[in-house]
């Protein structure tokens, strides 16, 4: 199991590369990853800062549950989920997910499923700070409304 909440800045590529080193050579053929990063704009305005609040203990429990469910559903060799909380600046990584499997479909689908589940259900809340003051984000952008599905 490797999933955790970080109150400090995270380095996603380093986290992924560190996990990669732990994989037995030749077992995985596919690695899929997703990184969510803070933008300097929202639907409303330019952003200066964000505070990511969470429900301590429930987030840890929820991430662990997500990892477990993904590992049950797909034949993953490994899986990592790391989520930031606290003060976040534009350009800062917020979440990183990595999935390792023998074949690509499992890694890609598990990674996709994990970020959607996390976005829709993990108990985190964003408070954005811009020139017009602070406000809580009411809801995430729908994962399936943007971009054309092939």
């Amino acid at each position, binding site marked *: 199991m490797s999933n955790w909440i970080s109150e400090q800045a995270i380095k996603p590529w380093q986290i992924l590369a560190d996990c990669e080193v732990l994989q037995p050579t030749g077992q995985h053929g596919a690695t899929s990853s997703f990184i*969510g990063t803070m933008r300097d704009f929202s639907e409303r305005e330019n952003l200066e800062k964000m505070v*990511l*609040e*969470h*429900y301590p*203990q*429930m987030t840890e*429990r929820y991430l662990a549950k997500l990892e477990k469910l993904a590992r049950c559903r797909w034949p993953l060799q490994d899986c990592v989920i790391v*989520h930031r909380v606290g003060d976040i600046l534009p350009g800062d990584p*917020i*979440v990183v997910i990595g999935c390792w499997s023998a074949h690509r479909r499992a890694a890609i689908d598990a990674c996709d499923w994990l*970020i959607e589940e*996390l*976005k*829709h*259900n*993990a*108990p*985190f*809340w*964003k*408070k954005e700070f811009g020139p017009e003051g602070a406000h*809580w*984000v*009411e*809801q*995430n952008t729908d994962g399936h409304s943007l971009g054309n599905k092939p």
Partner: protein
Amino acid sequence: MAKTINQMSIQVKFFASLRDKIGKADIELDAAKDPAEAWTLATDNAPRPDNILVAVNLDYARFDTPVKDGDEVAFFPPVTGG
């Protein structure tokens, strides 16, 4: 509503915009049969927004999920992580 020493109680928590709206982060109740009642008691009968979520003991629950002494009940707005 105040906690009595040596007696179990229900711990109620509010998060994010809901905490700001309610004006408190947590409160203890002597008892509540379910989250619906916990909400009423903890908020002095404030109207309950349609979209709020509830968790009992760190798992998502319903407003009529039975609650027992020692449980933790949390109310929060739609999540926006990731």
